């Protein structure tokens, strides 16, 4: 889901920038870190950090970062559920931040150790899934939407209808294969809130998708961009960053956020309970929120940054890209996925099993 967009030549400018940042940040209280060995265990998505970010952090703070990778939030949660195996910083998506707070799996943040929180855009400073940002800082965000092959689609397929309620692209379309996402977008199409937990509405969404199933080529395990590139499908539900990557390889591929609205995701940095190096982790979070560092990361991985100071440093080709930063109207119709509770999770999963078996 979080594959990199590829490295741009423009990134070179930031190598110099990052050096400046390292110098500028050397006022950080090294004494505060004296109590901990200079190590940090970072558990992150693949290709989801700047090229030199970790090396720059080491140059600036002396802390060696060891990064492990995971493929989805479920893997992260299942790994930490039975106790933290030694990670200091993790990157859960918003609904999992909420879940992990509910399960007391995240350490409350010491905001005084993260002065760069001032760089965060106001809209991201207080969020429903983490009131007052007590447990997480925003890392990257974006809307999920529809990727499509322009030459094989009639106009811009800017509605969920083409994937959920139409035979126009029969045998050439794909939905994702995750219950919350697929049912959530069905709710948006039906005019309900994204996080609906009413069993009757879940059933109605189930009927809608079962009726559409004969026209679906597959429920894609998060590889919609590959399916579009290889011509297996012409229209697919997918996360924006993945499609942006495909667009860079193939001019005929484009991306749209449906007018009914969509799922807004935000990945956040957090410190799990039991982290062996919490002070180093705070220093790392503060480093990531630095303007130059944040800009270098955003330039590399091409997701929307919630860091206003970093955004101000970035070129128009990034800030003006509607695939990265959607328009205001589009955003107004989007909602973040919330943790819907264990009972709702069970209902969703049972509906999903029936959909797949139908």
């Amino acid at each position: 889901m979080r594959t990199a967009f590829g490295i741009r030549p423009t990134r070179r400018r930031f190598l110099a920038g990052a050096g400046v940042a390292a110098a500028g940040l050397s006022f950080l209280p090294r004494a505060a870190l004296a109590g901990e060995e200079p190590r940090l265990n970072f558990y992150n998505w693949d290709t989801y950090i700047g090229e030199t970010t970790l090396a720059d952090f080491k140059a600036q703070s002396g802390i060696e970062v060891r990064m492990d990778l995971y493929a989805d939030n479920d893997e992260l949660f299942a790994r930490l559920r039975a106790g933290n195996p030694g990670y200091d910083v993790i990157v859960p998506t918003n609904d999992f931040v909420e879940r992990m707070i509910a399960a007391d799996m995240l350490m409350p943040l010491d905001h005084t150790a993260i002065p760069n929180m001032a760089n965060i855009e106001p809209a991201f400073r207080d969020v429903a899934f983490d009131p007052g940002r007590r447990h997480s800082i925003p890392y990257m965000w974006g809307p999920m939407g529809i990727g499509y092959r322009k030459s094989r689609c009639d106009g811009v397929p800017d509605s969920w209808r083409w994937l959920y309620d139409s035979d126009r692209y029969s045998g050439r379309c794909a939905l994702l294969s995750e219950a919350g996402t697929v049912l959530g977008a069905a709710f948006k199409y039906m005019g309900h809130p994204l996080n609906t937990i009413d069993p009757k509405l879940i059933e109605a969404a189930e009927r809608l998708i079962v009726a559409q199933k004969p026209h679906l080529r597959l429920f894609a395990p998060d590889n919609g961009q590959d399916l579009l590139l290889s011509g297996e499908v012409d229209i697919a539900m997918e996360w924006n960053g993945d499609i942006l990557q495909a667009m860079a390889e193939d001019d005929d591929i484009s991306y749209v956020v449906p007018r009914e609205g969509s799922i807004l995701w935000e990945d956040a940095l957090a410190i799990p309970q039991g982290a062996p190096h919490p002070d180093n982790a705070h220093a790392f979070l503060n480093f990531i929120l630095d303007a130059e560092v944040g800009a270098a990361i955003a330039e590399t991985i091409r997701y929307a940054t919630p860091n206003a100071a970093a955004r101000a440093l970035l070129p128009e080709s990034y800030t003006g890209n509607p695939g990265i930063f959607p328009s205001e109207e589009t955003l107004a119709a989007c909602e973040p996925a919330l943790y819907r509770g264990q009972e709702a999770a069970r209902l969703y999963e049972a509906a999903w099993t029936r959909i797949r078996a139908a």
Partner: protein
Amino acid sequence: MDPDSSGLTAGAGTGRRPERQRGRRRAGLLPGFAALGSGLWFLLFFLAPLAFVWVFSFGRQEGLIDIELAWTLDNYLRALDPLYLDILLRSIWLAGLTAAVSLALGLPVAVGIAFAPARWKPLLLLLVVLPFLTNLLIRTYALIAVLRTKGYVNAVLGWAAEWLGLPFEPLPLLYNDAAVVIGLVYVHMPFMILPLYAALERMDRSLVEAALDLGASRARAFWTVVVPAALPGVFAGTILVFVPALGSYLTSDLLGGADSQMIANVIERQFKRANDWPFGAALSLLLIYAAFGTLALRPALARRWRGPR
């Protein structure tokens, strides 16, 4: 290495070579150690983890991370819902089809290797095993490249059609149940070929010669001499293919279409997205019982086939 000191050959060695008294005594102890070792292995890496799964299956998910050991049967009642039984039956059908196709393709290969000149055999066996040494995920992705609309199969068919002057529409080979069975057969083929080969290797070749000398056609000799000799390998191979195929989820995830859901996919989701370990544990045990049932079928089948003779 002294052949008598290995647990595997100890039994045969002691019988034939009584003059090696010391070796014999040592060999007498080794099977005991071997049994102890495999017993410990079985206990530590099979029974103990399975006991956890078994206990979980009677639990109840409380909140996000706690499992209350309630000794409830609710998970099993849910698992016995026709929805899940249908998915299990579907998985049994796909795994059975996989075993059947593997047998149909594997038997000629095994016969070919068994009757090949001795100096070719190691190479031929290596060719069977070699793909097996490659990571399952990589092999599955390779199969995607072969089967997809713009893949190698369609490219070859397209050239052939062009050469013959026929119209050609690429075949939808990927993302359906057929693709899942192809994937499972591809992955499990060595498990079929190797036991078949082992059974055929033990066969007395002079029986084939006798059948041919006595006027049997080649086909008749194959069916009345070679196939019965291969039967133990057929049973072993079928089980070795069927059981892992029944529990596979990666293949159906990556190659399957909108309908291709196997029971292991449902189980995986209970442990991850649904975060309902007790229910996932109950479903896993259902799958394990189905696999044990298959193992129990083996002696019964073997008796039935050997019966008349």
